[in-house]
């Protein structure tokens, strides 16, 4: 179980006249993610979804509020300690490295260099090619490839809470179904609390609960049927399958 209580995140910004303004990006977000449940976080671009995920992982410093994992207050813990406590985060824009291979990343993540153990992870996440292990996690990887590596390194940690930030970016359409099955299986077999940040209707369908974020706040919590009308009301078009219907023809422009 992961609880976030009244989370705030502010940054100082300088305007053209060099005057410093405080901008609040996350504005009092509270929620309890239950063990072994599947959640989706959605909302317009720039609404604060990634920022919330990074506050949970400890990557962004919390301005105020608290984070509790299984009842333990982890607000003051850094990224390393939160990772060791059982939180894992798949980055929306994964870092690329010079000289580090997928094998290196997976070994760090799984805590072993034993190839048979790494192969077990590959089988679990459905990466069939062994050659892929020795690919550099560098600039030559395609957008889809690096997202698969990102997903695999998250799963290899056997986390209590797994947050996937737009895991479908660059992934071919026919891989999205199996990806959802994989995340559900991880939830069922390992009891991982699963949180997917996504604009993709397939993930929203798979989720037991959807959190709709707008302007740094939770605007709505519910299932797809209660969320869809709100998505259509918001004047943006991230939900292709929903918006690209005749009912929302102006999105085609």
């Amino acid at each position, binding site marked *: 179980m992961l609880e976030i209580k009244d989370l705030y995140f502010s940054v100082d910004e300088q305007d053209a006249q060099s005057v410093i303004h405080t901008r609040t990006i996350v504005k009092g977000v509270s929620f309890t993610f239950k063990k072994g449940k599947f959640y989706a976080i959605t909302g317009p671009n720039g609404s604060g979804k990634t920022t919330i995920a990074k506050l949970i*992982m400890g*990557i962004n410093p919390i301005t105020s509020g608290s984070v509790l994992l299984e009842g333990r207050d982890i607000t003051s813990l850094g990224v390393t300690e939160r990772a060791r406590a059982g939180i894992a985060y798949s980055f929306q824009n994964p870092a690329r490295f010079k000289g*580090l291979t997928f094998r290196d*990343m997976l070994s760090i993540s799984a805590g072993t260099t034993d190839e048979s153990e790494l192969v077990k992870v590959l089988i679990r996440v459905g990466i069939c090619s062994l050659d892929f292990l020795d690919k550099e996690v560098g600039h030559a990887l395609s957008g889809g490839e690096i997202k698969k590596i990102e997903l695999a390194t998250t799963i290899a940690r056997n986390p209590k809470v797994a947050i996937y930030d737009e895991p479908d970016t660059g992934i071919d359409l026919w891989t999205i179904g199996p990806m959802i099955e994989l995340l559900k299986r991880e939830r069922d077999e390992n009891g991982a609390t699963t949180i997917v940040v996504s604009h993709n209707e397939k993930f929203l369908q798979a989720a037991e609960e959807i959190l709709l974020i707008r302007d740094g706040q939770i605007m709505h919590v519910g299932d797809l049927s209660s969320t869809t009308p709100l998505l259509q009301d918001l004047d943006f078009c991230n939900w292709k399958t929903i918006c690209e219907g005749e009912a929302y023809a102006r999105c085609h422009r």
Partner: protein
Amino acid sequence: MLDVIDRELLKGVADLEGIPKGAYNIRKNGKLLARQVSANILIETNEDNTGINIIIKPGTVNESVHIPVILSQADLFDVVKNSFVIGEACDVTIVAGCGIHCGSDKPEGHAGIHEFKIGKSSKVKYVEKHLGVGPGSGKRTLNPVTRVFLEERAHAEMELTQIGGVDNAQRTNEADLGPGSSVLITERVMTDGVQRAVSKNTILLKGEGSRAELISRSVIRGDSRQDFYAVLEARARSYGHLECDAIVMDNGTNETVPSLRSLHPDAELTHEAAIGKIANSQLMKLMSLGLTYDEAVDRIIRGFLR
């Protein structure tokens, strides 16, 4: 014959646990310590007694030569001039390197001038490591010069590494490429404290269809300074690429000057250069996999210098 310090140095510069297999020449404190020739690889002291000539017979394949230099004598500046003549159609590996052990406050140094003539259609892999160790405060200087001449369709892969513990280094690399030949030079240098390293590189693409690639990876820690200069000059239809990457940590400083000179309309020359700190996103990714900050830095640096 080899004491513990010798063994440590040999392990560090040539990955040797003891005396190597195949041909070798081990130089210690300015003198020959051991030498072994093979049926195809001849090693002899040169005429003016300033180094060795290594002559590899045409058609020699799958053989290696080790020529490490170890230094553990205070106040010695050892200069050697080694020349390699590699016949046609060879495929050989040459492992060189210099390890300095400094036990006192007296300076020690070495300048290895290595010249290679690589015959037609031959393939050479050259691995050179430089390392300074020991508790002494004496200044350790290593000034290597590597010159390579490639004949038609010859190929050379040169891995030049300065692992650590070297106070001052003036590195010079030169390559001269004949028709259809190719060279890949990878230089990796790590400095710390108040160490200083300068690397000067000149690559001449003289032959039609020649190809050269120079990759430089620098890690600059503490208050150290590294400068990197490279000139890639094309005099024929050819291809060349320079890639210079420096990670600056603490208060390190760096100047990187890549230069491309095209004297032929069909030459294709490119370069990439980057100087910067370790990206925060890289640190965050590894820390989110459970590494501490220091462990993450270490993994990133080790990967970068691999």
